[in-house]
Every structure is written in C-alpha cells, then in structure tokens.
C-alpha cells in the first residue's frame, strides 16, 4: 500500500496565546511546537495499514517552515519511510491555497490513500483534506473514527450529532482522521535513531496569496464577573428565568 500522510507543525495546545506586534499572528517566542495531534492518528493508521498489507510505503508531507523538518522526523521515528517538506515561512490564511500546493505535490504519487488529521489545533480550519480530495477528484471521507479497508474498498465510521454515519467508499481515496481511530504509537528509541537516516526532501512551496485576508488576531472577550442571582434555593426560579430569557440556553 502506498500511503501519503499530510502533517502540520502546530503550537502545543497548552500555549499561552500572545498576539504578535503585527496584531495578526501568534507571538512565537518560547512557543513549543509539536506534531498536530489529529495527524498522529493519521500517521498511526497509515503505519498499521502498511504493516497489515505486508508491503508498501508511507510518505509524510508537510507544508511549513524549515523547522517542520523536525516534525517530519518525528513521523519518521514512528516508522514513516520518507518525508517531503514543502517549505514556506508564511502559511496563507486561505486553506484552499494550502490544498492547492499539497494537491500538486500529491497528484503524481500514485497513492492508494491520502490521510490528513481532521483539523489543525492552531487554526481549527478543518478543510484542507476534503479540499485536496476535490482538487484531485478523489473520493473523501472526513473525521474517520473507525476504518476498515478490504482491497480496493473501504468502510468508515464518522461521528455526527446523535449518531454514527457508516460510509462506504472506493480506493484511491482521501481520509481525514478523528480522535478514537487508533492509539498512536510513541517513537521507539531505535526508531528515533533510524529516523536520521531516512530521506527527507525539502522543496520550495508554490503558494498563492489566497482570497482570505487576516484583519486581526484578537484576544477573546473578557468575561464579566458573575451576576449573583441570589442566595439559596429561593434564587433558583430567577436563575432559570434568566437562563431561558436572557442567556437563551434553556
């Protein structure tokens, strides 16, 4: 099986968000960067599928700055065979541009599966995977929480409100992975050593500016301290009224 996994280098979820002086981006001083957690499920699934098939290749593709090579190496340490970095210092706000660059790289690869994490924990855009599928004219299922592949067909399960959708699709296909799909492996020590010797190709990314312009990155609105509705059980009817009429949550 030949599988491509698209990964992203993202700030750790515990990052205290400081807005840079340009008012439009994250101040990266002291920020720890990690492999996007949703991409870990994609990498793990790719490795399992290749192991089950007994043969094949898993390729990690990242769009990002030079430091993303370290992120690719993490996947190589997990067992991915080789990596490709499409290098750019500024990722456009427009996910379609990212999708175009990735689609161009992936198109000639002859992959059976193209896996993505369902979304990146920095921008929460949740779109690049299905956009790539659209650009490549490939079938796509997103937010896959359970997967079975048999030959050239697959069955995926995805969570929707109040239920689980069971979806069938043919290969080759694009899938985006959700939490619960698998338990990603930690890189083994030997894997970390071997990763240094695996091929990692760096190319310049061909990116357009896109049609989404960042106007500002803003802190979330300050929460006002609580309106103390009253004391004791006697205050409950008023609370319920406020929740219903003012907050509109009941």
């Amino acid at each position, binding site marked *: 099986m030949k599988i491509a996994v698209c990964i992203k280098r993202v700030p750790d979820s*515990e990052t*205290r968000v400081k807005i840079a002086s340009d008012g439009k981006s994250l101040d990266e001083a*002291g920020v*720890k960067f990690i492999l996007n957690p949703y991409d870990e499920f994609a990498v793990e699934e790719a490795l399992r599928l290749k192991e089950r098939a007994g043969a094949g290749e898993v390729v990690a593709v990242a769009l990002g700055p030079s430091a993303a090579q370290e992120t690719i190496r993490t996947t190589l340490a997990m067992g991915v065979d080789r990596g490709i970095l499409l290098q750019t210092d500024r990722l456009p706000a427009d996910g379609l541009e990212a999708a175009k660059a990735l689609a161009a790289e992936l198109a000639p690869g002859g992959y059976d599966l193209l896996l993505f994490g369902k979304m990146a924990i920095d921008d929460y855009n949740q779109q690049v995977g299905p956009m790539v599928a659209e650009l490549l004219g490939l079938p796509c299922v997103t937010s896959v929480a359970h997967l079975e592949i048999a030959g050239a067909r697959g069955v995926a399960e995805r969570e929707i409100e109040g239920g689980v959708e069971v979806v069938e699709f043919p290969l080759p296909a694009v899938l985006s992975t959700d939490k619960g799909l698998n*338990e990603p*492996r*930690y890189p*083994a*020590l*030997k894997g*970390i*050593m071997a990763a*240094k010797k695996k091929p990692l190709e760096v190319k310049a990314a061909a990116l357009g500016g896109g049609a989404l312009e960042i106007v500002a990155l803003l802190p979330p609105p300050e929460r006002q301290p609580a309106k103390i509705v009253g004391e004791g059980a006697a205050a409950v009817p008023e609370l319920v009224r406020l929740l219903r009429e003012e907050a509109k949550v009941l």
Partner: protein
Amino acid sequence: MTRQAGTAPFVPARYQPALPLDRLILTDGAPGAGDRTELDVLIVGAGPAGLAAAIELARLARQDGAQLAIGVLEKAEALGEHSLSGAVVNPRSFRELFPERPDSAFPFRQAVTRERVCLLTSGHSIPLPTPPTMRNGGNYVASLCEIVRWLGNEAGELGVNVFTGFPAASLLTTGARVAGVRTAATGLDREGRPLASYAPPNDLVAKVTVLAEGTRGALAQAYLEWQRIAADSPQLFALGVKEIWETRRPLDAIVHTLGWPLPRDAFGGSFMYPLTANLVALGLVVGLDYPDAGLDPHALFQQMKLHPLFRHYLEGGEMVEWGAKTIPEGGYYAVPARRSGAGVAIVGDAAGFVDVPSLKGIHYALQSGMLAARAIYPGLKSGDASAAALAQYDRLVNASFIMQDLYRTRNMRLAFRHGFYGGGVRAALMTLTGGRFPGGKSAVESDAAVARRPGAPTPFVPDGKLTFSKLDAVFRSGNATRDTIPLHLVPASEVPAPVAEFYSRMCPAGVYEVVHGTLRVNAPNCVDCKATDVLGPRWTPREGGTGPKYKRM
C-alpha cells in the same frame, strides 16, 4: 485538622524507606527489556552537565576525524522541561566549551548591571552591602530552560542523539562495572497493568555511562550507595520554589534577600532576577533542615510576594510559570570521595558541584561535563573504560576551579545549621579569612536526621492574584501528567499523622495530603523537585514525558 498539643518531635529519617537498590541496580542481561541499543557513550540527563559532556566528546571525536555514537537520555518530554534554576550564570565555562564564540552568541538574557542584597523584615527591607561571595559583575541573567535548549541544539548539530521522553530507571551492571541503563516502561495504569499505549523498557549499553541526572539523581545515589562511596559529610539540600512573572513595573537589578519570611531557625533566602525588564524570575530557597514541621516552603514564598519590595514589581502583573527544585548545598565536604568508577562518571548537581554562597552551579555543571568528556575520550580510543582510566575525571575536577571554589566556601552552609545570626557572623568571618576560619570541618547530619517539631502550619489563604494555591501553581508548571499513572513514590508502610502533615507542608506541589489522619499521595502532581526523596517518601523514575513542562524556568 486537629493537632495534638505537645506532640513529640520526630526524625524524618525514621520514616524514610531505604533507596530501592533492587529496582535501581540490575544485572546487565536481566530479562524485561524490549530493544537493546549499543552506544559508545551514554549520558543520563540532558541538563547543562550532560549536554556539555556530549558536546565536548563529539568535538574531540570530530577533531580526530572519528565518529562516536553518543546518546543522551532525558526524562522530560522535550529539552528543558525539567530544568529550573534562578539563574545568574558565570560565562567562563561557556567560553571554554565554545572558544570561538562571543558572549553575545550564548543563550543569556542580559548582563548583570546592578545588584542589591537586602535583609527583610515583615514590613521593611534593609539594604546590605553585597557580600564578596555574591558579586555578580561579569555574569548574566539567564533561563536554564533556554540554556538547555540551546545546548541541545548544539549537541544535535554535532550528531549527538538526544532521546527525550526516556527516563533511565535502573543501572545495568556487570560485576562492579556499569554497563548502561534500562529505561522506564510507558503506558502502565495505576495498578501496573499495561494499557494500549504500553511500551516496554529499553536497554542501552555503552562503554561509559555518564550520570548527569541533576539534584538527588536516583541512579547516582544508587551507584554511590552500592559501591559504598561516601563523602566526608552527607549531602544537604535546599528547596527552591520559583515563579516567572510578566510585570508592569520594570526591574533593573538582580536582588537577593535574607530574613523574612524565613523563621530564624531556617536557612535560605530569596532571589529576583530580570530576564528582561518586565519578565522577572523570583523565588525562595529554604534549607531542608528546618526544625519546624509546620513550615511550608510554597506558602512562605507566596507570602513573601506580598512584601512591599516584591509587591512593587508584581502588582498588576501576571504569573506565567511556577516550579520547584532542590539544590545540593553540602558543598566541598559533601562531594563524594570519587565520582567515577568502572564504566561510569557522575557530573553536575548529581555530584554536588554547587557553591551555596555564590548560588552558582550551572557553570560547574558545564565544566564537570567537559572534564568528564576529556577523561573519557582517551579511554574510548584505547578501549579502556576501567575505574583506573576514568579516575582521570576525578583528578581533573580536583585540580580545577570547581573544587578550588568549593573549598574556599567549604564551611559556609554548615555554619548556618545553628541559626541565622550566629551563622551570619561565622559566614562573614569565613569570607574574610578565605575559608580558613573556623578551621577543621563542621560536623553535620543529613537533613532527614534533623528532628522536627510538629508546629502550627504557615497560615496562608491564596488571593489568586499575587498568591496561589499549590494546585493552581502545579497547573502553571505545565504539569499535565495523566492521572492514571502508576505510583512512583515510595512511602514507609506506616506514616503517623504528624509525619504526614509534615510531608504535606514540605511538598510544594501538593502531592501529599492528610485525609482522615492518613497520608494520601497525589503522584501526578509531582514536579520532580526531589524534596520528597530528601525528607520523605523516596522518588523513583517514572514514565517519560510526565512531570512539569517548564518553558523559561
């Protein structure tokens, strides 16, 4: 929580289990490991000592046109995440390790321009003349986390393998020789059963293993105990609790204080350093031989921040990080008789290379790492990693400024064992006489052997703005250890309530609580400061990547 009036004093050592040598020392070849990896040199701990050793070794090999397989094991998930210090750094060892670079290339924040020493009372601060041992002209304020990440980068570029998330849990030995280490298993639940994420331990074997675990290193202790290597005095420790604040008002000097809020019979003081004018590192250091069992170092530190001296800077600011770590304070007489053996060398804080009066340890760590590398390298070339060959490391250290400096202040800390003012006078006389007063060597017992009076706990209600509870503080250490982790702390089988109370005050991270008179252990809170190992339940290595995630401590 009721306290029995007139409860008798107790000695913590009575309730301390012995170091579990049967877990910490294994025979090489013992079953239980998954992979086995062979290296030329294995270094345990990616702190300044371990990384300096790795860098110097890689350099020496490169000069010879040779290749060395060097591996550094680090228990934290990423470099620097378990590193914590004040810090004001003496740059000399950086200059020696990187002779071709200017000071501006080093990972320091700013040069020390002004410094102040004050004696605090509850409402005032009385300036004192800076003691000669504390003059920091020519030194730099720095973040140890940043230093470690920078060193790690340098090491990586020289081809050193740094394995983060891999704690060394046991030494592997062949006879009296250290053959390597076994790492901790991952993915076990509270009962020790494997979860889906289970990964077995790894064995790493090497010609030489360098133990650079930092303060109260488990394997270093185990080795010294196993080989019966003693020092003239037991090692003493202090606990430092530290925070980093983004401040509204700028700080332009490094500040050290003595006195309040520490009681007269406790040793220690505080520090406050500007990383930048508005990014301030501050902390309180308390010697762990304090006689009052009710003393709570975290609570004292929180109260200290309310003093006008500190409040002036902190008010309106934000606490961005919290952490804690012990510091070896025994000085010259507590350094083990030898820090090397067949297949092994001990560097940095793990060997006790810290000078208390000047509050310095980082450059000694770097220096000892370099010296270890220089002693190890010829042995690697000739295939000789025997105790005799590695004894060269001890000779190099003994002849270096490390031991010269420690010798000069050899009795300083011990002088304070008997009280602040008397200690202050003795310390002043020691400085004046270059260490020759009072002569001889002060007798001293280990911290755990010092009797504790059950006392009233330090009263403290956090305000959430300037002062914080232990649970809130632990959150700010970045600690997100999973709650299902196996217990890594080893208490005695019976811990009476007063002793449990004592633990709950001592631990800055709220690991210990007293519930219905019995000890409750919240192991996931642990930030690996090692105070527990000094005074209470023993600390053992746990799953990689657990514990704090310091960013700029």
